[in-house]
């Protein structure tokens, strides 16, 4: 009985180890949404707003210049601008301070813009997915705007 159990433990632990090990081997370092949770994706800023309002590029540069942040996705819509970012591992203890600092900086530089700022992985993932859908499937701008609003609504959810 004990021998069988030991065998079972070994089998379970080897299986768990192999699953994680092989999963690690299988992950390629592409920049797609498949790896957005694990790798730095650095997606290009996106502007789905009407012409004449294109701050996405400069906003991304501004946000990326913060030393605590390493991966930034910016989507500029008609009314709202979504900024999703990842915080460096050891800096994650100071998440709220970083968000406050970023909000202050953005409000000062772009007082007219309406920002939705999030460090949530899901929001980042959805931003990358939306960008992919626009580029690969040619999602029209009005639908893209609707999708952006959905992401912003998702960001507001607390429970």
């Amino acid at each position, binding site marked *: 009985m004990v021998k069988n*159990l030991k065998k079972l*433990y070994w089998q379970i632990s080897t299986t*768990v180890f192999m699953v994680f090990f092989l999963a690690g081997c299988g992950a390629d370092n592409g920049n797609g949404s498949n790896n957005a*949770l694990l790798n730095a994706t650095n997606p290009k800023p996106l502007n789905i707003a009407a012409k004449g309002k294109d701050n996405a590029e400069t906003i991304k540069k501004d946000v990326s210049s913060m030393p605590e942040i390493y991966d930034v996705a910016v989507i500029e819509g008609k009314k709202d601008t979504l900024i999703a970012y990842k915080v460096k591992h050891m800096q994650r203890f100071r998440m709220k301070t970083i968000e406050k600092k970023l909000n202050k900086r953005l409000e000062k530089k772009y007082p007219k813009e309406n920002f939705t700022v999030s460090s*949530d*992985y*899901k*929001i980042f*993932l959805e931003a990358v997915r939306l960008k992919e859908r626009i580029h690969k499937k040619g999602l029209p701008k009005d639908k893209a705007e609707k999708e952006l609003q959905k992401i912003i609504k*998702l*960001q507001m*959810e*607390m*429970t």
Partner: protein
Amino acid sequence: MGNKQNKVTPEQQKYQQLQKKHELKRPVLKNCIKAFLVGGLICLIGQAVSYFYIYYFNFTEQTSGNPTVATMVFFSMLLTGFGVYDHIAQFAGAGSAVPVTGFGNAIISAAIEHRTEGFVLGVGGNMFKLAGSVILFGVFSAFVVALIKTLLVMWGVL
């Protein structure tokens, strides 16, 4: 206490010395390492479940906590029912009791233990014998903290 020790007969003293000699020392460090590793592994699985919910469902990092906890408790309940969790707990000790999976184990093991007493008085009455206090403490302390926060917000401190 001092008087009692004085009354120990030479035979008793001899026996105590013999007992001390043969007593097994508790391997505290080894137990800690085991608990750390298994507890960490459980948390790793929890993180994977959390990412699963983030990736394939409409849950954010903030909202994925609830379904993750439910899933982990459900897993541990199944494992307890199949008799696997007992062996893990024997090996890992606190490493398997402290994470939320220990909560599922506490409910189901009590339910299994009292199954012979019937479904209502046995299972129903004793299911929360161990976990009930945890739930009560959690709910009550959350209530107190929420009350304090509400008062602080009302007074404009926060």
